[in-house]
């Protein structure tokens, strides 16, 4: 009995430590929000393939306010991730674009990855979660 209890304890300790060590919180600060109109939509991707296919791991919405906005993705498993976000100023639930497909509302990426005569590159927005919480800050592009 004691032996069994000890085994269980060891197992559960391992399981708990696994849970705590191999997941983390991502705290994101979005800077440069220009108005209180509408909402900020934020999307977290696990790996390049999911990013390219638009398959988000987690997503959240927060009310826009001028200046900075903070939000947290909790209990994210270890791995490689990328974040992108946009400011839905007119509250229509999407990032508006002009007739040639260029965004007409604010948007941004983790690591402050920037589009440059073309889309922002995944390799510039990716970051790693490994055994600890992280804080990120990205400026919104209008």
């Amino acid at each position, binding site marked *: 009995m004691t032996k069994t209890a000890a085994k269980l304890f060891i197992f559960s300790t391992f399981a708990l430590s696994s849970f705590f060590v191999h997941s983390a919180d991502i705290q994101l600060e979005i800077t440069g929000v220009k108005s209180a109109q509408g909402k900020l*939509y934020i*999307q977290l991707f696990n790996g390049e393939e999911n990013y390219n*296919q*638009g*398959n*988000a791991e*987690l*997503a959240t*919405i927060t009310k826009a306010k001028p200046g900075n906005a903070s939000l947290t993705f909790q209990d994210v498993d270890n791995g490689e991730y990328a974040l*992108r976000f*946009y400011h839905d100023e*007119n509250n229509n*639930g*999407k*990032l*508006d*674009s*002009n*007739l*040639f*497909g*260029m*965004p*007409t*509302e604010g*948007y941004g990426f983790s690591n402050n990855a*920037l*589009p*440059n*005569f*073309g*889309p*922002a590159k995944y390799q510039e927005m990716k970051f790693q979660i490994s055994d600890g919480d992280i804080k990120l800050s990205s400026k919104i*592009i209008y």
Partner: protein
Amino acid sequence: MMNRRHFIKNLSMVAGSSLAMAPNMQALAKIVEPTPPLSSKAQFARSLKKNPGLIGFANITENFALTGLTIEGRMPDDLSGTFYRIGPAGHERGDLRYQHLFEGDGMLHSFHFSGGKIFHQGKFINTPKFAKEKQAGKFIYSGPDTKISGARAVHHADEINSSNTNVISVGDKLWTLWEAGSPMQVNPQTLDSSHWVNLGQNSPFEQSLKGMPFSAHPKVDPGGDIFNFGLNGNGQAVLYHLSANGRMKNAAVVNAGYRGMLHDFLITHKHILLILPSLSPNGAGKGFFQRTRFEKEQPMRVLVIDKAELTIKKGYQLPPGFAFHFGNAWEERDGTIHFDASLYPDDSSLHNLSAVMKGQVNKHTSRSQTVLYTLKAKGGFTQQYIDGDSEFPKVYDHLVGHRNRLLYTTGHKHNPLWADSIRKLNTDTGAVDEYYYGEDYLVEEHVITTNKADEGSGYLLGTALHLPSKRTCINLFQADNLSQGPIMRAWLPYHIPLGFHGNFQRS
């Protein structure tokens, strides 16, 4: 709170296209490593000492304060208003000189005619690019051809919009124009820049036209409505129909299937003509203008687009050719369309505007000549080459899209660098009335101004750079008699850089 799965789906729908740059911006990005920057600036400075004509391409650093001109000849009583013209003036910052004439920061000039006097002022268009780079004391963005070491990322075209190509009056404002981005709204009196025009604002198009390319050659029909196009690097073109006060009436995207450079277009009373020269991007890693190449096997195509619907109705294929500019188009009742082009046989004129930035003036440049085209209603065409060379074609405002007989152009007689003459061509009879300024002058675009809807009435006026005295003069001609020479010439005490386009706004 929104259902997470639904939210992710929504985001995914916009992820594929909306966060991607438009292809025209991707096309601009393929920039070759430049000649070391110092050498371009040094080469130009060295050449300028030997060739005074290059002063028109020299860098300008300061605005021109209001200055009175010295008038020779007779100022007509029936002429008051302001001649606006624009061109690149900021070619250099720090040790760097731009690689192509089309890259420089735009400067707007006004020549105000009133009470027998003329006053000039010139002001840089205060684009965000200009303001940031002025503050930094150096170029911080790469241009279409010029690669800047450590350049800032470019998110959209207006970040590098130099607003340097044309200026038109829209309502009680001026719009200064580039061709890959938005118009800049400018105060007509102070020449102070205000903001990028959001083309769809206060119309059903709202934000959907924000930042779209708006070419530098809008056409104003005799009723006042404004038509224009913008080209995307993926072969699409957007077409615009605006009211005289700038409110968007209609806009639509058509697939032009064209990836070359397109500077100008035409309208008839019923149609828009997109005339697509024999140009294609050719040369990975080169700058935008560098890789724009003449394709001698590629027909020059004409797309005929319904003005009311903004849809393509038919197309024509013409022999290979290249034109920066077209004068006018008009249409007969049976659908036969007539138009003219200042046609080049190749692309050397485009690339020599890069050579001149390094001070190279002796490269061979093919000349353009007026070609009159007729597109038959049931297909087929005819073309007629007019002797002599021509550029910057102009017709009377009241005949835009309607039958014109007179076509005003500039031309080269002897000067290889820039125009030295002006011409009036009667396209019905072939009669020519021209004036040669002489070897001391570099002649810029001349525009028509009249207070009558009468072809041949009023005046032709334009600026010219007088090389011996290093001064710019403005010249006024009777529009029906160019060969008698200017009836009035007014002198600035300095020169202004050679520019591109403008218009006279009567008051």
